């Protein structure tokens, strides 16, 4: 069975949520068998999830059934966007919370109800699905793109093995899962912990909610996995003044964290006998691809570290030759069994096989140091040539953030860089700082004020929504 779920004692709890619902490993195996029996042929299913034990059970049971192939989506997906995905992919099944309002025509076709979720047969016919296709994830939660990432069962096995190995996960672990199940890193927390028979503490509560903190304390969470934004909130919540003796591991992924905040958590963990592990990953690779071992957390702060076990990172120059010398920038490439098969843009793509063969160009520009630790410089393409000088947009954002404290997003053309900030009073200062640090004439920068920097729900900036001239 997938990640040997049936080898874990059946009565052990796989997931416990902040409403007190529990599912055991046995529950997941039983549900999986039931799904397999009632669905029969391999079918596409839109699974609209909340962060609950029931949703986790349905996701894992579907995957383990190798029969129901889920596209995992936020239950709060905007109705128009959901409809356009339905029109594009025409799923044969829907799996939704019992409280979810459906059109009446759907209501009568309930196949199964369990753990607060209902499985419903739609009027759509079955479509061709590649035999190894395990699940689909959206590439963007909010912009309405129908582009999905196609995963295979071997990706799940590889992610579960690699991640549980380098985090040294064990059956007694009780990871806190605040990242959503429809997000690659959230799912990877589930895969890697169920692989070792741990109990996932799952919640959709807000971090400023009193119940969130009582859940952590009562259930004695042993680890926390977050994106930079989560740690920003934890910091504001005075996490470092809290007494959480069971919390032994903090892990971060989902984008570069500001250096000062990264260092603050690294130092806090070192002083308090906890592990701080920064990671790097992409949804195209079933989440984690690199990790910075805790011994380097402070010394090499900002580095993404080394490849996860059983995988390989490399650098290529613009001619596609491998770069072997340290401190030389090139496009970072990755080889490993967690590399997904490719994208889907329409229903017929679901029949496609593996287009990548375990290798991917990440689109990130990076270099490595003498110890083999990698450092991301920026996205390929996130560079401008101003007066013939190559200027990194991500680097400029870092400068503005560090020097002025202003949150910003840089876009532009080779004519001019457009810097978007939200604080009008810093307009002049931001321009000055950029001129000082880059030594490029002031007319190359235009600083614009907007009410808010557009971001997706994991906090990544949506540059495409900002005019670049």
């Amino acid at each position, binding site marked *: 069975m997938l990640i040997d779920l049936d080898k874990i004692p059946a009565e052990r709890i796989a997931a416990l949520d902040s409403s007190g619902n529990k599912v055991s490993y046995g529950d997941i195996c039983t549900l999986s068998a039931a799904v397999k029996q009632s669905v029969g042929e391999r079918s596409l299913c839109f699974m609209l999830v909340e962060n609950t034990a029931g949703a986790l059970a349905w996701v894992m049971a579907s995957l383990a059934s190798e029969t129901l192939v889920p596209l995992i989506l936020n239950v709060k997906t905007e109705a128009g966007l959901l409809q356009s995905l339905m029109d594009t992919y025409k799923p044969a099944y829907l799996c939704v919370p019992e409280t979810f309002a459906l059109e009446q025509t759907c209501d009568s076709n309930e196949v199964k109800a369990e753990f607060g979720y209902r499985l419903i047969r739609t009027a759509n016919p079955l479509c061709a699905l590649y035999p190894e296709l395990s699940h689909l994830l959206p590439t963007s939660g909010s912009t309405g793109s129908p582009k999905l990432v196609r995963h295979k069962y071997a990706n799940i096995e590889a992610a579960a093995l690699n991640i549980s190995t380098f985090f040294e996960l064990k059956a007694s672990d009780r990871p806190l899962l605040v990242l959503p199940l429809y997000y690659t890193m959230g799912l990877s927390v589930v895969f890697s912990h169920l692989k070792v028979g741990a109990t996932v503490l799952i919640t959709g509560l807000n971090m*400023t909610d009193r119940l*969130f*903190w009582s859940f952590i304390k009562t259930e004695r969470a042993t680890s926390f996995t977050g994106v930079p934004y989560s740690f920003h*909130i934890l910091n*504001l*919540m005075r*996490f470092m*003044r809290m007494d959480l003796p069971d919390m032994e591991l903090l892990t971060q992924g989902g984008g570069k964290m500001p250096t000062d905040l990264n260092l603050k958590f690294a130092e806090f963990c070192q002083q308090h006998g906890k592990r701080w592990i920064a990671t790097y990953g992409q949804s195209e690779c079933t989440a984690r691809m690199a990790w910075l071992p805790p011994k380097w957390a402070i010394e090499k702060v900002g580095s993404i570290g080394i490849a996860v076990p059983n995988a390989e990172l490399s650098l290529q120059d613009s001619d596609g030759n491998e770069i072997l010398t340290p401190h030389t920038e090139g496009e970072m490439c990755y080889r490993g069994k967690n590399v997904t098969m490719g994208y889907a843009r329409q229903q017929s793509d679901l029949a496609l096989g593996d287009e990548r063969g375990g290798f991917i160009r990440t689109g990130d520009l990076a270099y490595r140091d003498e110890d083999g630790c990698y450092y991301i410089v920026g996205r390929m393409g996130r560079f401008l040539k101003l007066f013939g000088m190559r200027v990194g947009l991500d680097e400029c954002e870092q400068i503005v953030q560090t020097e002025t404290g202003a949150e910003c997003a840089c876009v532009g053309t080779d004519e001019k860089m457009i810097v978007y900030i939200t604080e009008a009073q810093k307009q002049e200062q931001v321009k000055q700082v950029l001129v000082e640090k880059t030594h490029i004439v002031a007319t190359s920068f235009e600083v614009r004020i907007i009410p808010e920097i557009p971001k997706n729900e994991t906090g990544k900036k949506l540059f495409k929504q900002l005019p670049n001239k």
Partner: protein
Amino acid sequence: MNNLEKYNEIFANVFGAQPDQLGANYCKENVSEWDSVHQLNIISEMEDAFDLMLDPEDIVACTSYEAGKDILRRNGVEI
């Protein structure tokens, strides 16, 4: 500026709220913008305005205009 005016100014800064909007009904449930980030902003403005260092317990309790006043009183601010 007295303490109440200082306190009201925090809500003007965070939500753009006018003093006549503020009262017993001004709370997380009724104010759609009141999410975790806004809640944390209120706390950090309170710390700056009244020179306090508030606890996690205060942050989670800060879910209404009146609750914020209670937090200030608990921390020795007369309001």
